[in-house]
């Protein structure tokens, strides 16, 4: 089964996954009109800033066992077995925040949503774009990501690729050249700048 995989070293911090996610979870599915909707669609993926301002797309891991699912007393959270997705039923959710307290990754937010009754605030998180997947599309965050920080693939294939990358880096005579020297240079400058503020 294909899953969304995160490759933090490739995140350039453009935040386009956030806009694409919000649009995918809007009524109109178009960024230009989505921003005029009520309730305003919001992203389920959030890009955080690392130690020197580098990006990281923080996304629901759909854990198993899922702490949020175990913590939900009304039973609003369940697992969709076909896509291995932890989902929240907005009609059952009582907005108690137990799931957010249990979540180790801080990916659950509370706001109104087009899937919930008008005016009702509910717990909202990544649903792996199940609607898009049913239509034969990749999750929106993966589709928009052009730097390869988010991929949708068989975990075994992704992990094999990563294993090979690590293997190549320890090859005898490996040059240790970064795959994108310009990006490595930019990050080196950012690290140097971040270090200066401590002086």
């Amino acid at each position, binding site marked *: 089964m294909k899953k969304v995989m995160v490759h933090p070293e*490739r*995140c*350039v*911090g*453009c*935040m386009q996954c956030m806009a694409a996610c919000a649009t995918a979870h809007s009524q109109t599915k178009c960024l230009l009109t989505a921003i005029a909707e009520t309730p305003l669609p919001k992203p389920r993926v959030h*890009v*955080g*800033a*690392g130690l020197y*301002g*580098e*990006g*990281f797309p923080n996304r629901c891991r759909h854990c198993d066992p899922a702490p949020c699912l175990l913590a939900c007393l009304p039973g609003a959270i369940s697992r969709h077995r076909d896509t291995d997705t932890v989902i929240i039923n907005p009609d059952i959710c009582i907005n108690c925040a137990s799931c957010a307290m249990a979540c180790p990754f801080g990916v659950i937010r509370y706001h109104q949503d087009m899937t919930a009754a008008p005016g009702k605030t509910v717990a909202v998180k990544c649903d792996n774009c199940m609607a898009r997947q049913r239509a034969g599309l990749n999750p929106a965050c993966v589709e928009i*990501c*052009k*730097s*390869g920080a988010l991929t949708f693939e068989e975990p075994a294939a992704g992990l094999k690729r990563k294993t090979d990358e690590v293997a190549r880096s320890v090859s005898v005579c490996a040059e240790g050249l970064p*795959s*994108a*020297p*310009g*990006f490595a*240079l*930019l990050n080196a*400058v950012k690290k*140097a*700048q971040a*270090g*200066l*503020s*401590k*002086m």
Partner: protein
Amino acid sequence: MSRKYEDLTITKDGQLLLKKAEHDQVETVWDRYQAQLPQCGYCDMGLSCRICIMGPCRVDPFGEGPQQGVCGADADIIVARNLGRMIAAGAASHSDHGRDLVEVLAEVAEGRAPGYTIVDEAKLKSLAAEFGVAVDGKDPLQIAKELAAAMQEEFGTRKKELTLLKRAPAKRQDIWKKLGIAPRGIDRETSEMMHRTHMGVDNGWVSLLLHGMRNALSDGWGGSMIATDVSDILFGTPKPAATTVNVGVLKEDQVNIIVHGHNPVVSEMVLQACQSPEMLQLASAKGAKGINLAGVCCTGNELLMRHGVPMAGNHLTTELVLATGAVDMMIVDYQCIMPSLGKVAACYHTKMISTSDKAHFPGMEHREFHPDNVADMARMVVKEAIDNFGRRGRVYIPVEPVNAIGGFSIETIIGALGGTPQPLIEAIKAGKIRGAAGVVGCNNPKIKQDYGHVTLTRRLIENDILVLDTGCAAVANAKAGFKVAEAINYAGPGLKEICGALGIPPVLHVGSCVDNVRILGLVSALANALGVDISDLPVAGAAPEWYSEKAATIGVYFVASGVYTVLGPMPPITGSMNIVNLLTQGLNDLVGAVFAVEPDPEKAAILIRKHIETKRQALGLPFLANVG
């Protein structure tokens, strides 16, 4: 604001006012910078393109995603086009500033600008001679009229080559001609850059960057140079004068007016109004002990250079100064005025006034100043500031001001040397002064405020390198106490001896950011006196905390003029290693100078010292083989 104030700025006034701003729930540039993190890596690398609407496009730096925009432009082309437009914007800004001054000069000549006069007639005449305007037996106003017309021609397309290029050493002019980068018209090069970067025009990244140099030179040896020279004609060529700096220049018992921006056209008239007996009387009637005009940013530098007007702070202080609650009015013209200022001022009694027809801001009252109404407008707004004095709440001015000397125009520096650069050359030849460096540019929240400027400057002067500074860098160094005669104690023995004998500080304030052309003037004078090119001199430039498009253009005209230049923050070019390599290595073969990027000022100082010693060696002067 989770970070410690000490991590954000080295300035005491800045740290204390950040605390005050946080207490007052005033959002500052540092808060907004944190909120922007992470910043988009495509944009940071120059790999995003918004030029046409087949896009927007971006190139994946890891090589797996798209490698070309919809039009087919690859990373090299996209980065070059973006950099080209950055240079064009910077050149347009400083050169438009220059155009505004030429217009005032023309209006003065026509008698349509009451309040302005020709202050430096000698400079008017020498400029006129350079532009081929006959001066003998002519009335100064007639000369001004003809000179203004001749300068306006520089902006257009009727010239084969800009007049002031002649000021550069002959060898430098030859290099420009050979490379085909001698600028022809000030606006022409900017306009051509916008044309070349349109989809489907110039798709050679090298030719784009060569034109980028021509575009920058059209500013450095054109628009900016005219701006400085005409400012000197209208308001006087700066002479050394004592002043004070930092937020402590505000006075609790006086009406405090701050001027902010770049063009002296408005601030000079505000100064006149502040000094008029009528306004002083009015202030006194309102219970104020006087009217205290101070500057921030470069319009402040213009007044500091010519009149010793105190300086409250540089770019990152412009919001914090309002948090004192002591500013009765801030009057802005244009450039580098954060659109947040109106919102900050709304937390206090401060009145915000915008004055330029081309610069409007939220939360400011717009009072348009034109050459024909400027004297009346200045009196009107100063009167409003006086009226506002009584509305002050609690005032917090947490520091005492620091003394400084400003006003080192090239004319004054040469004058202090006895009318010729020879004494400076002798000191350089003897190794007492190893060389000179221009430390220029802005503040940027990516670098702890003033840390880059002050650390680099301290390391340079203690190694006997004379520092000339401008803009926000100059304000940083003044706040640090480098601009008093006693600051020679920070200098190495040779520099200390020379500056001590001349009675000057080891760090010379040469003006606003538009005045970087004064540094071009000085290096040209040195090169001509030695019979060499600028690129042969033991000199360097640095912009340790730059942020603006104008600074990018300044950097490019420095390098294209032969000055090795070290940038603090990385420009958005890392998406193309071809361009990184051209700017940091390849340009040496073309113009005899390159860029370096080094955010750590300690390391930047070593780069500059090594460069200066290498140039000394090439000139056959005594040199140090091991630096750093």
